[in-house]
């Protein structure tokens, strides 16, 4: 990869990054360009993934090279979906998606039962099998989980009216849910900041002299655009500002 390409790449990457970030200030033509470009690029990326990883090795090769005619079944089911565009025969597409739904449902039942049902019950009672060597605090913790699980499940009871004792218990369940939500939220913050830090770090790299100050120049151009835009459309500004502030 030649140096020119690298520098061109840096300019494009820095530009697209800043365009997308500009949405945080407000919607603007540059964001719209990046958004639409991304729409195409995203589909383009998956297009080549599907062609080179699925249609090539899993459909074309078996069919043309190995003459494995079984592949025709999913291919026909897949093509049936495209009948969607012709309203008269669009019902044919049902053949395609009912297959997917049947397969998905069949897969979901035993998997949910084992990992999320049986194993979760097991996980709740298992710690107590160490009873003999547990500290009182550890016993308390294990009981706390069990108690919490039961309370949360009470919250999800649908065919019982939530009043009296049921209400009390399901309310306690809500507190456990709140702890989980808060903790999960707080736990994710760092990962998201790291990502943003990574983007900024890239922009910083592209701001180097080596890349002809790509980040600074694009940034500057954006600021100038917004200033000019605000200045030119002074009368319209009030509205957009308010709306953006929300």
């Amino acid at each position, binding site marked *: 990869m030649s140096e020119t390409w690298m520098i061109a790449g840096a300019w494009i990457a820095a530009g697209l990054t800043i365009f997308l970030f500009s949405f945080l200030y407000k919607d603007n033509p540059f964001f719209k360009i990046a958004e639409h470009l991304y729409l195409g690029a995203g589909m383009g990326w998956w297009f080549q993934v599907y062609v080179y990883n699925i249609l090539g090795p899993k459909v074309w090769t078996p069919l043309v090279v190995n003459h494995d005619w079984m592949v025709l079944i999913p291919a026909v089911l897949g093509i049936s979906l495209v009948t969607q565009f012709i309203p008269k025969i669009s019902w044919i597409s049902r053949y395609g998606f009912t297959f997917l739904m049947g397969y998905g449902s069949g897969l979901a039942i035993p998997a949910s039962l084992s990992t999320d049902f049986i194993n979760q019950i097991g996980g709740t009672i298992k710690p107590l099998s160490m009873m003999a060597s547990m500290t009182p605090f550890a016993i308390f913790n294990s009981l706390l989980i069990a108690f919490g699980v039961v309370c949360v499940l009470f919250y999800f009871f649908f065919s019982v009216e939530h009043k009296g004792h049921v209400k009390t218990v399901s309310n306690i369940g809500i507190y456990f849910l709140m702890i989980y939500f808060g903790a999960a939220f707080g*736990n994710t*913050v*760092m*990962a998201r900041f*790291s990502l943003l*830090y990574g983007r*900024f770090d890239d922009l*910083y790299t592209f701001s180097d002299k080596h890349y002809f100050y790509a980040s600074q120049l694009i940034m500057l151009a954006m600021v100038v655009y917004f200033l000019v835009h605000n200045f030119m459309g002074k009368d319209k500004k009030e509205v957009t500002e308010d709306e*953006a*502030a929300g």
Partner: protein
Amino acid sequence: MLKEKLQKFFKLDRRWIFLLLAIVLFAPIIKPIGLPNKTISRDVQNAYTYMDTLAPGSFVLFSLDYDPSTRPELQPQAIAMIRHAFQKNLRVGVVTYIAGATGLIQQAFEKVPKEYNKVYGKDYVIFPYMANAVAVLTQMSSDFYGIYDKDQDGTDARTLPVMQGIKNYKNMALVVNITGTSMLDIWVAYVGDKYKVPVIGGVTAISQPGYGPYLQTGQLKGLIGGMKGAAEYESLIKQPGKGTSGIDSLNLAHLLVLALILTSNIILLIIKYL
């Protein structure tokens, strides 16, 4: 009067928050502040000590399995550990089982070896990406070259000076796996336990707690978690890098969030009770 002002602050245009966040995250990149770092965590120290006590010339296999999405956290870890390996004059081999990692590995090895006058082929080697990690890892236990007969440039791997005397895991002193996926579990289960190869891991902050059991049982010799772990390792090898500036950024950004939610609650209290 005060209340009205506070009400206004309550509905603060969120773009001010965005600006603040951008500043606190960006500023340390330009100029690392070096905020006080808490003591080095036990698992990072263990990782450092293990690597530090290896005999010069030992072969360390780095499995770098992360893609751009986890790069900010994991690349600094990888660079710090590679620096350490070069400092100690260890031989370095790099493999990967994530296609997206190849570009990042290239990036890491563009600069670091030069700092220590290390030569490709003699002191370190990079192998091409391989799919189907489990199968490859199992295969490598009997014959490394059965899978990796060529390095990334297509040179016959057996002829490289760096690979002299390396045939399988038995000849390797350490495996370092830095990953944002479940690769570390695979390394521990299929290689570490089976062939008694010491394994050190580097993971994201989110997945770090899950590896507690492996550390307890000694299946992992050490673990580096997130940006914080990278910063700690950098301070151990006395080479502040992206991890150190990163942890500054994260420190400030977290405090910003806390300050914001505290302020909004204090205002809420004042409006309610005053």
